[in-house]
């Protein structure tokens, strides 16, 4: 505890950069996956391709990706960009599948109703398909957010600042307290992110929080 309080500024600053490295890929992944999934919905071949490419990408070890990316992107090895690009790739690999499931979860009758009312395709997608797919989409996002928080720590092996630094540093100095602070801090971040996502989902899907009508029809006298 004393160690923690003595090093609080460093812990907070590392937690902050940890968070940035986890959140940005999540946002980018949503922006990339939603159109990809929508394209895949109308093309079975593309859907199959996206899903296999995603699976393959996800099997590339994260450390290897962190090392290869500077070569591909021309960035410095200590650049945040490497982590962000790597985690975006992983997140997209998972999220395309989730988004596809999410869009397919929308009741076709409702979609038909929207078409019948005269929505144009893009407007219908943004105003009907996307909002209604949020519950399933968020389920996927919550898994990826936790996975991102944990993957960010790997960057510490290359010296990219995150709470993972306490793992490597604690190991080198044979100082378990530091390792524990790293682990607990990472867990707290994961829980925090999850909480924010749950809250965000509640805000974005107000219609799911309403009490249902009684099952029986009320016949007026």
């Amino acid at each position: 505890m004393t160690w923690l309080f003595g090093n609080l500024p460093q812990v907070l600053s590392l937690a902050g950069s940890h968070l940035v490295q986890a959140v940005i890929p999540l946002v980018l992944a949503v922006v990339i996956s939603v159109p990809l999934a929508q394209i895949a919905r109308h093309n079975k071949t593309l859907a199959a391709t996206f899903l296999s490419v995603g699976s393959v990408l996800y099997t590339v070890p994260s450390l290897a990706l962190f090392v290869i990316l500077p070569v591909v992107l021309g960035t410095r090895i200590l650049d945040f960009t490497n982590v962000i690009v790597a985690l975006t790739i992983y997140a997209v690999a998972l999220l395309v599948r989730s988004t596809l499931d999410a869009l397919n979860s929308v009741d076709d009758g409702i979609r038909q109703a929207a078409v019948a009312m005269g929505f144009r395709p893009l407007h219908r997608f943004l105003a009907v398909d996307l909002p209604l797919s949020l519950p399933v989409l968020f389920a996927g996002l919550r898994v990826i957010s936790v996975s991102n928080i944990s993957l960010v720590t790997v960057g510490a092996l290359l010296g990219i600042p995150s709470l993972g630094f306490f793992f490597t540093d604690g190991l080198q100095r044979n100082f378990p307290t530091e390792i524990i602070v790293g682990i607990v801090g990472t867990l707290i971040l994961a829980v925090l992110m999850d909480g924010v996502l749950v809250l965000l989902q509640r805000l974005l899907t107000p219609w799911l929080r309403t009490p249902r009508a009684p099952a029986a029809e009320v016949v007026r006298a």
Partner: protein
Amino acid sequence: MVVPHAATASTPLATTPAAGSVIEFRNVTKTYQPGRPAVDNLTLTIDGGAITVFVGPSGCGKTTSLRMINRMVEPSAGTITVDGRDVSTGPAPALRRSMGYVMQSAGLLPHRTVTDNVTTVLRLNRVPRAQARRRAAELLDTVGLSSELGRRYPNQLSGGQQQRVGVARALAADPPVLLMDEPFSAVDPVVRAELQQELLRLQRDLAKTIVFVTHDIDEATLLGDKVAVFATGGRVAQYAAPEEILRAPADDFVAGFVGRDRGFRHLSFSPGTDVPLHPVPHGAGWELVLDDDGGPAGWRRDGAAVVPGGSLFRLGDSLRRALDAALSSPSGLGVAVDDDGRVAGVVKGTEVLAAIDAARRAREGGP
């Protein structure tokens, strides 16, 4: 016949006259699999301002035909015109906004409030929000819902209420054409009967061109000014007034589809005004018990417990109602009530049959 647009005439939203448009199918074919057309060379004129019902067994092409009108389905061949204009010219979304659409299970957008659902087409047409909301409140009233329901989400409504919102939404932009795809088939029979009467009431004021799809011949004959009976293979076996379809089915298919009870159903079109009314029996035997408002509460025999009565024959109803009232009554006497639900007398089954016979002879022109 065409009543002015009472409910909505004050709103500036109407872009077309209230009287409905004439819809014409000319040699329309839709083929999904080669050699097995879903709709086969359909030629049909749908009267403006009237309810036309497409009825038939599943897979007969009635829904496909309906959906070709607003281009939810594109025909493989042939043309469909609305007031002489080919629907295939111009963008489909604009065409769809000019027609109301009501589907089974309402198809309301679950993530939008009732008001937002009703205003959907208005907002698509860029009607200002405040104006659209006023119109929504007005429409909820028209379909018999409290405007307080406007703030709720669809899942907070009963099935019947959702269906009413579906109708309000379809009427919002005051389209001359209303397409209804089995709109009442997912609600229970009591609510369905209520919704059917509401639709007839609305139509008396609105005089839209309504195309209504159902697989229920009773619903078809009740609602339709004209009924098109679709046969398997996507052809129309008969297109006529419901009375004629019941009285003179064009072929074996129609006769079979209309069913065994068609003689009984046909009585719906004969008024029961000539059936003699008798005073309510008192004393020994069956006795009719009245409630505080003068309505029927049930029957009692020789002072025993009260048993529930049968169906009611409202004065002015058809012979079908009169006969059913007599047949379903425990005493064999059908209870006749006036418009306020007060007992007006009783009818006898034998005399209803005599009235049926008289009506038949009058139709044949004989003595």
